[in-house]
């Protein structure tokens, strides 16, 4: 025992430091998922092993179609968010200097101090039949009657992009910030146009930020519940809504568990495919 006096206090310290992380991982992530896994494979009446709840997902078109719809709309929301956030991030990181840079960045952050629920209600006040925009259109004579702008796919998309914007802007600003101005200047100096410099110098440099932003936004959109339900209404057909229905309305915890795990599995698969397509590795993006 006396041969290890120098290393053992260090090891104890390391374990103490790791303890909160381990507890969090085990209690809040691993255990619940093991529980879900167990639920999803158990027949509640006989207590025996069953594949039935997974079968249900593939056999009932409503379920897998809802899933595909959720995935496709989340991918579209991710792409839209990227297209809008990139110029914003470039402007903040490269065009603004000093004080104004901090102010504009803070202005991007401030809306997120308000809860997502309240922000979504804000959109409802604007978009509903008796809302601000509808009233304005009637007042200005552009429309004869009330206009309902809520409860469409476009509204859901608007809400998703709005909710996700910050999570795309932040990683993009930090990668673009690390791009030294001299690379951009060298790009022009050697004869490049705006488009050349963007495509050959700025975007290749920003790829890690683009990928991490896309992963976060995609996961947030896929797992979003509030926005699709409030802005899309009853027909929003979002997959998390199905999970909610199974757990809360139908009390079918086994089916809900199976859906939850399928969501995890399929979203991981899509992220993996996305990384493959963009030829990035997860480690590189996070490092």
């Amino acid at each position, binding site marked *: 025992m006396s041969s290890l006096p120098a290393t053992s206090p260090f090891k104890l310290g390391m374990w103490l430091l790791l303890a909160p992380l381990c507890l969090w991982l085990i209690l809040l992530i691993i255990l619940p998922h093991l529980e879900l896994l167990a639920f999803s494979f158990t027949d509640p009446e006989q207590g025996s092993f069953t594949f039935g709840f997974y079968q249900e997902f593939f056999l009932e078109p409503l379920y897998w179609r809802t899933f595909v719809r959720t995935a496709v709309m989340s991918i579209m929301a991710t792409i839209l968010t990227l297209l809008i956030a990139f110029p914003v991030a470039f402007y903040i990181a490269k065009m603004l200097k000093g004080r104004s840079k901090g102010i504009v960045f803070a202005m991007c952050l401030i809306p997120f101090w308000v809860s997502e629920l309240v922000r979504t209600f804000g959109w409802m006040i604007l978009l509903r039949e008796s809302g601000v925009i509808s009233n304005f259109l009637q007042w200005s004579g552009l429309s004869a009657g009330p206009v309902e702008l809520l409860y469409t796919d476009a509204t859901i998309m608007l809400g998703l992009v709005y909710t996700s914007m910050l999570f795309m802007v932040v990683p993009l600003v930090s990668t673009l910030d690390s791009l*030294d101005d*001299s*690379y951009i*200047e*060298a*790009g*022009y*100096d*050697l*004869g*490049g*146009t705006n488009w*050349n410099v963007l495509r*050959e*110098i700025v975007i*290749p*440099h920003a790829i890690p930020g683009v990928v991490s932003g896309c992963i976060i936004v995609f996961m947030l959109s896929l797992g979003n519940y509030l926005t699709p339900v409030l802005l899309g209404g009853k027909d929003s057909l979002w997959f998390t809504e199905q999970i909610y229905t199974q757990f809360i309305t139908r009390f079918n915890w086994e089916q809900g568990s199976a859906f939850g795990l399928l969501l995890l599995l399929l979203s991981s698969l899509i992220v993996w495919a996305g990384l493959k397509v963009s030829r990035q590795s997860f480690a590189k993006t996070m490092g």
Partner: protein
Amino acid sequence: MSKETTIDLACENICKHFSDFTAVDNISFTIPKGSFFSILGPSGCGKTTLLRMLAGFEMPSSGDLLIKQKSMLDVPPNKRPVNMVFQHLALFPTMNIEENIGYGLRRQSVPKAEIAQRVAAVLERVGLAGSGKKRVDQLSGGQRQRIALARCLVLNPTLLLLDEPLGALDLKLREQMKIELKLLQKEFGTTFVYITHDQSEALVMSDQIAVMNKGKFEQVGTPHQLYYQPETAFVAGFVGDSNRWQGNIESQDGTAVRVSTNDGLSFKAKVSADKTVNAGNSVEIFVRPEAINVSRTAPSEQTDNQLICQVETILFDGAKSQIIAVEPESGGKITVTLPQTSDFANLQNADTIYLNWSAEQTLCFADNPDNRGGV
């Protein structure tokens, strides 16, 4: 007429004002084709701003900038026949060496086969044949330097701008790159505009040097002229080492003056281009340590300036060793180069040495407190 066409760059009354100060103050100069032109100055003198105006990243507040007799004021940086080697080189880390060098050629829509051939040729010329597939971080500092040059030279620019590219290298490599840069410049025949705060870089490489201070050119000339015939006190102090005294003029006879320094020494000096010096005026005088003859016995001949001093310290630095000597009567100090002859091999502190030098080598300038930058 034939002289006109050989001018690559002409700047006419270029000024650049920022909101609260003037970075470049009414500068005019021309650079002949194929020459190595350096702009030497302390940091903050405006040399980088001037270079960035040549590249097109800054617009002059007034004045004109002509390359091959064509005004460049309305030409954006990507259309100018000018390329720049950046201070930290700015080799694109997301591309390999070949792609880095080919970047400019791709912008000119050169066919792929020709790009490959021209890239290989330029790599060969900078002595890095076969490293086209390497990543930027696989090269050493000196190799990156050469790639940055190759990336510009492959485009055959009229003017190559270099923004202190040797600053990040260690001393040995810097010495080596100085010679290499000069050789490459000769070989390619491209006009180089090189900015630096390191006088040795400028002296070794340049055909012409402009010494810049506070937004103005103090003097433009060959390295030889700047060293031996500085026109201003700033140039005398900034280029090369100098003993420097403040003093007053006792008497004047044409360009020859007698000056007594504030620490009690008295010298015969020569007034240079500066003609506003009168008896009684406060002046600065400069004597280079290497211009002073040192002997251990009293010299037989009379020279303009003579001092009998005691060695206070010997600063040993190989061939650049110096003696700091004190004149016992006045306590005035003077730095001289330690001769590498056997006479001085056993020189020790407190030994007596005899110093003498001519009035020609004692430069005298009107004292201008604003110009005491230098050194």
